[in-house]
C-alpha cells in the first residue's frame, strides 16, 4: 500500500479539524451557546456526510493515506458513528447545559475536539497518530468532565480520570517504545513484519504488547483496571458520560483491533491468555458489581464494564487466523450496536435531569412510574435495557448472537460459559429498573418537560436500537466487506 497523497480519503478528519478551528473563531467573535451549538452540529453533520459519501475507497482493503492513517470501510463506518453520537450528545446537553454555568460555548468546542480525536483514532494505523488521537480525546474529556465548575464531584471525577488515564497512556507509550526498539518501525503493519527479526527476544516483545494492551484496556475499563469507571461516570454530567461510555470506548477499541489484527501479535507467548483473562474477568466483575447498585449511573458504568468484557471475547477468537474475519465482524457490529444503546440509557438520565447543576438524580427510585408519567421515555429506556440484556428484537441481541457465533466457531467453551453466566446475572439488574419504572410513580421532585427536538432524539435512538435488531442485514453485509 503505497501511501498516496489522496487526502480526500480522510475527509472527515479534515472537516472536523477545520470545523473545530472555525468554531473557535466564531466563539472568539461572538459568544452565544445557541450559535455555538448550531455551528458544532453543522460541523458534525458535515463530517458525517463526508464520511458517508466522499472519498469511498474501493471496498475491502482500504488505502493508507500517509503512513499514519488507514482509510478503509471500518474507519469510515466508525467516523460516521462517532460524529452521529457526538451530535446526539450535543442535542442531549441542550436543556442540560443552562443549569451548568453561563459560558456554555467551550463545552461544545471540547466535544468537537474529542470527536476529532476519536475519528483520528478510527483511522490511526501508526503509533504517532494513535497517540495523538487518544490524547486529544482524553484531554478534551478531562475538561468536559470538570465542566460543571460549581459542583465538587465533577472536579474529583476529572482528577481521577486525568491521573489514572495519564498513567495508562504512559504505559501504552512505554510498550510502544519497547516494540519500536524491538522491531524498528512504528506503523502497525511494519511492526508485524519486523517481528521475525526482533532483536530484543520474544519475551520482551510480548511484555511490550501486553503493556500496550493494558494501556488500552484501562481506557476501555476492562476488569482489573475498572475501578475508576463508576466514580468518573457518576461524577461527570450525563451527556458527557454518554460520550465517555460510547465514543471514548469504541475509538480505542477500534485502534486495538487495528493494532492487533495488522501487527499479528497474537502468536506472541501469553498475549492470547491475557486477553482471555481480561475478557472473563470483566464479564463477571462488571455484572456482579452492578447487581445491587441503587444509582443508575453507577449501574450503567458497571454494565459497560461487562459489555467491554463481552466484546473482548473477539480477540481470543481472532488469535486463530481462520476465525479472524468473523471475530472482526462480530466486534464491529457489537460496537455499532453498543453505542446507540448506551447513549439511549445515559441520554435518558440527561433528559430526566434538565438544568441540573451537574448533580443528577439518578437513583432507581427516581425512575419509578416512568411508564405512566412519560410513556415515550419509558419505551426508550425499556428498549435500551432490553438491548443491554440481549433480549431479541433489539440490537444488543444481534450483537450477542454475533459473539456467540464467533466464540462457537473457535469453540472457546470457557469464554462462552462466562458469557452465558454474565448475561444471566445481568438480567436481574436490568429487570429491576424496568420493574421500578412499571410501578406506581412515587412522589418526588424530578419533573421535566420534553419538547419536539428532544422527542425526536428519543425516537431516533429507539428506532436505531430496534432497527438494528430487526433488520440488521444491510449493516452486516457492509461490515462483512471489511475483513
Amino acid at each position, binding site marked *: 500500500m503505497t501511501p498516496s497523497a489522496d487526502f480526500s480519503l480522510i475527509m472527515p478528519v479534515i472537516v472536523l479539524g477545520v470545523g473545530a478551528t472555525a468554531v473557535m473563531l466564531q466563539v472568539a467573535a461572538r459568544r452565544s451557546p445557541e450559535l455555538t451549538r448550531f455551528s458544532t452540529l453543522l460541523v458534525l453533520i458535515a463530517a458525517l456526510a463526508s464520511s458517508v459519501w466522499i472519498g469511498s475507497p474501493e471496498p475491502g482493503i482500504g488505502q493508507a493515506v500517509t503512513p499514519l492513517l488507514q482509510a478503509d470501510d471500518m474507519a469510515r463506518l466508525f467516523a460516521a458513528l462517532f460524529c452521529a453520537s457526538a451530535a446526539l450528545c450535543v442535542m442531549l446537553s441542550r436543556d442540560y447545559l443552562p443549569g451548568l454555568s453561563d459560558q456554555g460555548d467551550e463545552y461544545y468546542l471540547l466535544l468537537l475536539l474529542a470527536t476529532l480525536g476519536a475519528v483520528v483514532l478510527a483511522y490511526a494505523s501508526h503509533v504517532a497518530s494513535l497517540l495523538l488521537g487518544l490524547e486529544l480525546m482524553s484531554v478534551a474529556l478531562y475538561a468536559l468532565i470538570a465542566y460543571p465548575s460549581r459542583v465538587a464531584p465533577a472536579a474529583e471525577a476529572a*482528577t*481521577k480520570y486525568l*491521573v*489514572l488515564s495519564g*498513567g*495508562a497512556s504512559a*504505559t501504552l507509550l512505554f510498550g510502544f517504545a519497547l516494540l519500536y526498539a524491538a522491531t524498528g518501525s512504528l506503523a502497525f503493519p511494519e511492526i508485524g513484519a519486523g517481528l521475525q527479526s526482533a532483536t530484543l527476544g*520474544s*519475551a520482551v516483545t*510480548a*511484555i511490550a504488547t*501486553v*503493556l500496550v*494492551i*493494558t494501556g488500552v484496556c*484501562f481506557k476501555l475499563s476492562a476488569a*482489573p*483496571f475498572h*475501578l*475508576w469507571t*463508576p*466514580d468518573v461516570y457518576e461524577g461527570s454530567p450525563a451527556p458527557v458520560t454518554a460520550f465517555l461510555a460510547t465514543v471514548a470506548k469504541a475509538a480505542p477499541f477500534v485502534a486495538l483491533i487495528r493494532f492487533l489484527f495488522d501487527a499479528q501479535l497474537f502468536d506472541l*507467548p*501469553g*498475549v492470547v*491468555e*491475557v486477553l482471555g*483473562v*481480561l475478557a472473563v474477568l470483566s464479564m463477571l*466483575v462488571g455484572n*456482579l*458489581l452492578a*447487581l*445491587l447498585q441503587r444509582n443508575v449511573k453507577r449501574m450503567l458504568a458497571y454494565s459497560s464494564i461487562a459489555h467491554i468484557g463481552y466484546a473482548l471475547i473477539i480477540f481470543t477468537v481472532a488469535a486463530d487466523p481462520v476465525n479472524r474475519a468473523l471475530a472482526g465482524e462480530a466486534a464491529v457490529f457489537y460496537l455499532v450496536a453498543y453505542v446507540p444503546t448506551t447513549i439511549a440509557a445515559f441520554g435518558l438520565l440527561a433528559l430526566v435531569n434538565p438544568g441540573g447543576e451537574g448533580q443528577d438524580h439518578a437513583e432507581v427510585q427516581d425512575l419509578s412510574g416512568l411508564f405512566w408519567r412519560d410513556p415515550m421515555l419509558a419505551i426508550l429506556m425499556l428498549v435500551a435495557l432490553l438491548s443491554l440484556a440481549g433480549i431479541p428484537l433489539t440490537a444488543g441481541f444481534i450483537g450477542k448472537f454475533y459473539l456467540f457465533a464467533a466464540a462457537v466457531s473457535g469453540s472457546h467453551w470457557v469464554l462462552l460459559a462466562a458469557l452465558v453466566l454474565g448475561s444471566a*446475572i445481568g438480567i436481574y439488574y436490568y429487570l429491576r429498573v424496568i420493574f421500578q419504572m412499571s410501578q406506581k410513580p412515587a412522589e418526588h421532585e424530578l419533573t421535566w418537560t420534553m419538547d419536539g427536538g428532544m422527542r425526536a432524539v428519543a425516537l431516533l435512538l429507539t428506532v436505531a436500537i430496534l432497527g438494528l435488531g430487526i433488520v440488521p442485514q444491510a449493516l452486516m453485509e457492509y461490515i462483512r466487506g471489511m475483513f
Partner: protein
Amino acid sequence: MNLALAAIPGLPMLSATLLILFGRQIPRSLGAVLGAGSVGLSAVLVAGQLLAYLDTPTVVTATLWTWMSVADFSAAIAFHIDGLTVVMMSVITGVGFLIHVYSVEFMWEDESFSRYFAYMNLFVGSMLLLVMADNLLLLFLGWEGVGMCSYLLVGFWYKNPANGAAARKAFVVTRVGDALMALGLFVLFTDLGTLDIQPLLLAANLNWEVGGTVPVLATALLLGGAVGKSAQLPLHTWLPDAMAGPTPVSALIHAATMVTAGVYLVARLHGLFLLAPATLTAVAWVGLATLLLAASAALVQQDIKRILAYSTISQIGYMFLALGVGAFSFGIFHLMTHAFFKALLFLGAGAVSHCLHHELNIFRMGGLRTRLPVVFLSFLIGSAALAALPFTAGFYSKDGILLSAFTAPGIGPWLWAGGLLGALLTSIYSFRLLFVAFFGEAQTEPDRKPGLPMAIPLLILCALSLLGGLISQPLDGVLPDAGHPQVPHLIEWISIGVPLLGVAYAYYAYIVRRPSSSPAEAGGDSPVEGFLFAGWRVDALYNLLLVTPYRTLARWCQGEPIDHFYNGVVSLNRLCHRGLAALQTGELRWYATTFVIGLIAVVAIVLRSAP
C-alpha cells in the same frame, strides 16, 4: 337396536343433566317424577331385554362411536349384553327404581332435593355403563363414575366436615384400587394387544399358559381394583364411614350395586382368573378373611347402619369366596339375593331413623315391634334372609356357596369351616339387631309412620327376599356351570343347622338376659369388644402407616425445599457483589495501586507462558 340399548344408561344420565341444569327452577314433584321416572323407564327397557334374552338367549352388541383409536390401541363406546349383563342390569334398575321411589319420601324435606336425585341418576347411569361395557376402558369409565357418585352422595350433606372427610376417604381408598386396576389394564393391553373383553378372553386362552407370571400379575392387579371397589380386605375401611350419606344412598350404593362391581368384574373376566389359579385361591382367602373380620366387627356395633355396613362387607366376602372356589354362578346368585335383602334392611333402617327423628343407636330404640309393624316385618324377613335361614333367598345362595366351597380341591373343607363360622356370626348379629331394636320396652317414641312411597318398596323387597331363591338366573353359557355340589348329607345338615343355632344364642343373649341400657362407652367394656368395634383397628393402622406420614411430609415440604438451592445461588451472588464493591473505596491512590497490581499480574501471565 342401538338406540334402545343406549337409552338404558342414557335416560338416567339425561335426567341427571336436566336436574343439574334446572334443578333450582323445577318444583319437587317434577324433580321426583324425573328422577324416579327415568330409572323406572330404563327398568322397563331392561325388563324387555330380560324377556327377549330368556326366550332366545343370544348375545346383543351395539357400538355407538369409537371413543379413541391411536396406533394399535382402539376403544369404542360399545355395549355387550349377555346373560350376566341382563341379570346385573335387572338388579340395578329393579332395586334402583324401588330405592328411588323410597327416596322421594325420605328426602322430601331436604332443601337440595333435585341435586340428590341428579347424583342418584348419574350413579345408576354409570353403573349401567359399567355392566354393559363391551371393553375394559368403558368399564373403567363406569367404574370411576360410580366412585365419583359415591363421593358426591356420601358427602351430600356437605355442611358437616365429617361427611366431607368420609366422602374423601371413600374416594381416595377406592382410587387406590382403581390405580391398581389401571395397571392391570396396561398389563393386559401390552401383553394381549386389546382391551375388548371377548377378544381378550380368546387371546388369553390362546397365548397364556396357566399359572404364568403375566396372567397372575394381570389378574392380581384386577383383583386389587375389585378389592378396592367392593370394600374387601385390605381396602375395606371406607365402607363403614360411608354411612355418613343419606340411608337410601347406602341402600343403593353400599349394598345393592356399587360394592358388587368387583364381583361382577371377576365374574366377567373369569376366563383370565381360571388361567391364574394362584390368584383364584387368593380371591377365596381374601373373601374368607374379610367375611370373618367384618362379621366379628358387626357383633359389637351399636349404630344400625354400621352393623349393616359390616354385614355388607362380610356378605361380599362370601361372594368372593364363591368366585375363589370357581362357583361363579353361585357368586352372582348370592349377589342378586344379597341385593334384595340388604336393600330391604337398609331401607328399613332408613325408615326407623326417619320415624325416630334420626336416632340410629339400636340400644336407644327397643319395642318398635308394635309401633312400626311394616318396618318390623321387613327387618324380620331381611334378617332371616341375611342369616340364611331355610326357605329364604339367602339360604339358597349362601348354602350353594358353602357347599361348593367344601367341594373345592385341597383347602376346600377349611374354607367351608370358615364360611360356616361366618354364617354363625352373621345370624347372631342380625338377630341381635332385631331383638334389641324391636323387642323389650320402648325408649324413644316414633313421631310418624312411614308413608306409602316408603312402605311399598319395603313390601316388594320382602317378597323378593323370600322368593328370590327360586329365580333361576339365565347364566348358563356365560359362566361355567357349577352344578349342584355333591356333598355328604352330614355337611348339608350342618350348613343348615348352624344359622338356627346362632338365632337361638341371640334370642338367649338379648331377650332372656336383657342387658342393661347401652354399654357405658361406645367401644363396649372389654378390650376385645373395643378391638372388634374399631374393625380390628385396621383404620388406625392405615393412619399410622400412610395418612400421618403423608401429612407430615406435606407440612415439611410446604415451604418448597428446592428453593433453598436457588436462594443459595442468589446469596452467593450477593456475597461476590459485596466483596467487589468493597474495592470501590474512592481513593485515587488505591485505584492506581490496583492498576499496578493488574499490570504486574498481566506481565506475570506473559512470563509464565513465555519459554
